[in-house]
């Protein structure tokens, strides 16, 4: 078997692929955070909990009602989006005039509640469901065996990230959203229902997290705390690359590489990179000093 630096090439590519899969989730979650932060000015600490919620909705509907994976892929984001809308309407909207720190604290409390309730019912043990039949199996790419589902996750997250970018930067709706970020009062004066737009934006960001959760579940175990640690990594990704950049994929890859060559550090490599980036470029890799 071929080796690179003493590591079998199969194992290397396998870990890189897993890194890329994780990176896809980082990218999707940081995108949802960015969409929400852009319009609401809220750093959504509950994002990890919503991601977990998406995974549980999928697991529950597949396990109990025998729903197919593809319907779950639709149902998960829908339910999480609705929960998001409800949270925004009842709680978050009371905080818009205050320091953004309060938004962070409120969503932190919400994350505690959501995770606590799921821990109550499902303990800390994991549930899992398998990838759909169409995506089971693997493809031999010559240099590595690619599990089809993982390839699907990476491709789908790229499509979703690009789609969201297109929606925000290139469409009428996106223009309204961006205008609402700059000057909500003026946009309101033009006859746009800004509060509704805000609610839909939070629901949309939450739905993205839910979608990531549904997609993640066949790869990793579904546990009540699956999002609580992930959200911290995603925060670090956001600090490095700014809100909503594709840099998450690169960081996922780096994490995969670390897992091969220095497994002890794979949990912390992203934070390490964050510290270095902050020392060299305080505004983040692509940020501009204000």
């Amino acid at each position: 078997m071929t080796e690179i630096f003493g590591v079998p090439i199969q194992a290397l590519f396998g870990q890189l692929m897993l890194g890329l899969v994780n990176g896809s989730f980082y990218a999707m979650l940081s995108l949802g955070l960015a969409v929400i932060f852009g319009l609401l000015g809220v750093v959504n600490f509950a994002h990890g909990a919503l991601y977990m919620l998406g995974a549980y909705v999928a697991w529950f509907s597949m396990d109990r009602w025998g729903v197919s994976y593809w319907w779950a892929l639709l149902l998960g984001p829908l339910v999480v989006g609705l929960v998001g809308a409800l949270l925004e309407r009842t709680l978050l909207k009371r905080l818009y005039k205050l320091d953004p720190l309060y938004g962070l604290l409120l969503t932190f409390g919400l994350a505690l509640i959501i995770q606590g309730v799921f821990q109550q019912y499902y303990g800390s043990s994991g549930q899992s469901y398998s990838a759909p039949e169409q995506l089971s199996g693997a493809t031999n790419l010559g240099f590595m065996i690619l599990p089809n589902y993982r390839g699907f996750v990476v491709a789908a997250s790229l499509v979703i990230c690009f789609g969201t970018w297109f929606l925000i930067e290139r469409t009428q709706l996106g223009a309204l959203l961006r205008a609402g970020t700059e000057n909500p009062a003026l946009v309101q004066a033009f006859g746009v229902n800004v509060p509704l737009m805000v609610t839909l934006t939070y629901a949309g960001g939450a739905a993205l997290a839910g979608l990531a959760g549904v997609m993640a579940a066949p790869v990793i175990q579904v546990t009540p705390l699956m999002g609580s640690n992930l959200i911290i990594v995603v925060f670090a990704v956001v600090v490095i690359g700014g809100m909503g950049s594709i840099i998450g994929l690169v960081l996922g890859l780096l994490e995969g590489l670390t897992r091969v060559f220095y497994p002890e550090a794979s949990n912390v490599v992203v934070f390490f990179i964050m510290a270095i980036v902050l020392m060299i470029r305080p505004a983040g890799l692509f940020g501009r000093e204000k």
Partner: protein
Amino acid sequence: MSWLGQGVDRAGKIAWIVALALLVIAPFVGVYPIFIAQALCFAIFAMAFNLLLGYTGLLSFGHAAFFGGAAYVTAWLLQEKHLTPELALLGGVAAAGLTGLVIGAIAIRRQGIYFAMVTLALAYMLSFFFLEASFTGGENGIQGVERGKLFGLFSLEGDLAMYFFALAVFVAVFLLVLRIVHSPYGQVLKAIRENEPRAISLGYNVDRYKLLAFVLSASIAGLGGALKVLVLHLATLQDVRWEQSGEVILMTLLGGLGTFAGPVVGAFTVVGLQNYLSDRAGSWTGVIIGCIFVACVVAFRKGVVGELLAWHKRRAKKA
């Protein structure tokens, strides 16, 4: 002690003296001293946090790293190096201060919400370090730590002796924080909180002020954690976890952000509540804490002490 008077009116002073008197007699009227001593440790932790958020406007989401980190160092110094408790405490505080210097220097390069995210991420990274490091005992933590003899003379093994030592440390920290807040340095911190660009344009090296505030806050938080080792005989992973960072935020917020008594009231409330709930609500405790968090942010942002002060002010105006 004229500085003690600044910003503290007569009613406030009387309230503090009454509170101190209550704390002194509490163990003699049937309150379990170790329980109050533990609450005092968290009160020190919350005062340290309040110094940073309440008076400087910096939200650190990683303060558990200093609290729990100092606890590990102190426990290790006591158990493996057989130092006397006061030296072990100092060791823990120094470790927390140094960690604070490193994390602070990195984190103050970003403002506002990003500052919170950076501190959270770095503290999370440290918690991995504490989990993996050989001296911390991994998932088990360091258990059965003996309190030893203060200055090599007075044994702290008795609960009452321990309690009064903790109370003395608490009072010292209280006076220290009061002194910091009312010093010219503290005034600059408040200026930074209110309007950072303006403080810069007045010629203050804002980053140095912020960093010093961060190191001070980290050291005091460390003292709280180190003292907790003496009180409870153990240092655990629980204390460095980010949930603990969240808890100290809750204590400060619930008691009253930027008020003097707030963090103390908040710490006693949360520790008491957890104690009460752990028997009755079991694993629902986390959910209930989360609900209180949400309620505080949505409807009760001034906190207990903040509301009391506002009520006092309104009454004074009427009269």
